C-alpha cells in the first residue's frame, strides 16, 4: 500500500535533456522559475509556455506522464484560481449574490494558472530527466563555492543521496511491519485520532529500530571502505560540461533576455 509513493520520479530515457549536465538543468530550472515571475503580459507568458513545450518534446517524456505530477497540486491550483477570479477589483462583468467576476480577475486567474502549471511542470521535468544521484551530484558541485564559507556541501549532498536511496527500502519495510502487526490483530483503521495515533506505536518502533540498524550497518560499511568525508575525494564519473551544456546555457540567457524585453517593452 505504501509502494505507490514515488519520490525522485525519474523517467528513464536517453534524450538530449536527459544527457544534459545536472548543473545545467538546475540552473535552467532556477532561471525558468524566475522568468515566470518576471513575465507579466500575454506575450511573455506565451514565450515561456512555448519554451516549456519545446523542452518537454525534446525530453520525450510522455505528456500524460507529466500531467500526473499536476494532480498533487490540483487543489491548490483551483483555490488560487478561484481567489483571483472572485476577489480582484475592476470592471465587473458578471455579478451574483456576493460574488462578482471582473475582467482583471479573469486575467489574473488565467495568468496565475499558467504560472503555476508551468512552475510545476518545469520543476518536475527536471526530476523526470535527472536521477536523484545526478541531482545531488549537481547540487554538490553547483553549490561547491559554499565550501569557502565552511558549509559542508559534500556531506549534505551525501546525506541527501542516502536519504533518497533509503526511501524505497523503508517503505517496503513499513509495508512488512504493518502486515505483521495486522496479522497480530492490530487495528489501524478504526477509532478516533488519539486511538489511531496510539495504534501507530507497534509500527513506528520496529521501523525506527530497523532504520537505526540499517544506518549503523551502512556507517560501518562506509568506514570499512575508508570513507572519510569530502576532503580529497575524487569521483568515478566526474561531472563534465559538454558542448550541449554550453549551448543550453546560451539559449537560457537568450530566453531570459527575451522574457525581460517582452515584459518591459510590451
Amino acid at each position, binding site marked *: 500500500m505504501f509502494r505507490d509513493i514515488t519520490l525522485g520520479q525519474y523517467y528513464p530515457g536517453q534524450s538530449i535533456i536527459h544527457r544534459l549536465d545536472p548543473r545545467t538543468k538546475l540552473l535552467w530550472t532556477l532561471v525558468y522559475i524566475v522568468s515566470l515571475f518576471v513575465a507579466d503580459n500575454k506575450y511573455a507568458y506565451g514565450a515561456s509556455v512555448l519554451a516549456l513545450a519545446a523542452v518537454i518534446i525534446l525530453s520525450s517524456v510522455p505528456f500524460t506522464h507529466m500531467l500526473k505530477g499536476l494532480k498533487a497540486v490540483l487543489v491548490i491550483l483551483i483555490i488560487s484560481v478561484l481567489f483571483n477570479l472572485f476577489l480582484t477589483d475592476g470592471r465587473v462583468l458578471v455579478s451574483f449574490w456576493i460574488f462578482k467576476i471582473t475582467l482583471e480577475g479573469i486575467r489574473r486567474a488565467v495568468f496565475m494558472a499558467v504560472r503555476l502549471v508551468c512552475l510545476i511542470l518545469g520543476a518536475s521535468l527536471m526530476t523526470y530527466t535527472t536521477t536523484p544521484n545526478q541531482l545531488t551530484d549537481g547540487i554538490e558541485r553547483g553549490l561547491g563555492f559554499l565550501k569557502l564559507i565552511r558549509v559542508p556541501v559534500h556531506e549534505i549532498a551525501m546525506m541527501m543521496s542516502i536519504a533518497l536511496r533509503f526511501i524505497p527500502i523503508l517503505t517496503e*519495510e513499513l509495508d*512488512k*511491519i504493518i*502486515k*505483521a*502487526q*495486522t*496479522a*497480530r*490483530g*492490530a*487495528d489501524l483503521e478504526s477509532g478516533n485520532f488519539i486511538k489511531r495515533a496510539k495504534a501507530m*506505536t*507497534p509500527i513506528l*518502533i*520496529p521501523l525506527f*529500530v*530497523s532504520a537505526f540498524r540499517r544506518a549503523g550497518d551502512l556507517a560501518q560499511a562506509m568506514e570499512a571502505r575508508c570513507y572519510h568525508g569530502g576532503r580529497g575525494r575524487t569521483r568515478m564519473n566526474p561531472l563534465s560540461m559538454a558542448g550541449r551544456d554550453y549551448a543550453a546555457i546560451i539559449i537560457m540567457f537568450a530566453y531570459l533576455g527575451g522574457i525581460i524585453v517582452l515584459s518591459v517593452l510590451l
Partner: protein
Amino acid sequence: MSIEIKNLSYTYNNPGSENGSRFVLKNISATIKKDEITAIIGPTGSGKSTLVQHLNLLLHASEGDILYDGRSIYGDDFDRKTLRASVGLVFQYPEYQLFENDIFTDVCFGPKNLGLEKDEVESRAKKALLAVGFSDSDFSRSPFELSGGQRRRAAIAGVLAMQPEYLVLDEPAAGLDPKGRRELFQMLRRLHDENGVGIVLVSHSMDDVADFAGKILVLNDGRVIFDDTPERIFSHGEELRTVGLDVPQAARLAEILREYGFDLPQGLITMDRLRTAITDCFNRGDK
C-alpha cells in the same frame, strides 16, 4: 475443518497500470486440512509468501475465492478480525514485529487485540512463551537484547498467544541453528498433535518438509505443479530439479545406493526410513 483455495489469482499491480497485470499467483486451487501438516515449497519468487498472506486477508485475491470451513472469507458477513484470530501468520523474518520493552508485554499484544480479559491475556502469553522454550526468568528481557534465534521464537510466541486454529509459518527455520530448528519442529509437532492446531509451513528445506509434512504443495512461477504426499512428490526428482528444487538428502542417497545395486523400496525420503531400509537389506543378506 479446512481452508479451501479456489482458482485464486493475484497481481500486485493495480489493474490498468502501465506494466500490465503480471500475475504472481495463477489459478491456484488447493485444500488445507486441519488434521494434516501442509508444507508449501517452491523456488525463490514462486509466490509462496504471497499465497500465505491470502489466508488471513492481508492480501485480497484478484480472482477466485477462499473458503474457511465452507464459508467465503470475502463474504460480507465474514468478520476479518475473527479470521485473523483463527489463522495466525508468522512472517518470514518475524523478529521485525517486536516493539515492547520486554518480550512478555510484546507477546500480550496479540491476545489483547482480541479484546480478552487481562488475566486471560497474561496466561496465554505465558503459555506461548513457555511453549517456544523461554523460561519465566526470560519474560522481562528486552527483545532487542536477544539473539536472532531467540527473537524469532519470541515473535512466534506473539502469534501463538492468539491461540489460532491454524498456524501459518513462512520459513520459520531460516537462520536458526540445527538445535533451534529441531526444537522448533518439535514444538510445531506438539501443537499439531496435542492441541490440534492446523499447521501450514513454507520452507526451502526439502529435508525438513519430508520429515514433517503430511502433504506438500509445490509452487513454481505462481502455479501449483504438485499437490501430493511427500513420498509421491519426491519420486519426481527430475521435475523438481528442473524448477530449481531437489529431493531430500535421504532420497538422493537412496538413489545412489540403488545404482550400486542395493534393492531399496521407493519413498525413502527421511534418514530414519533409509536407515531401516538399509538394515533390512543387510538382514536379508542380499548384498
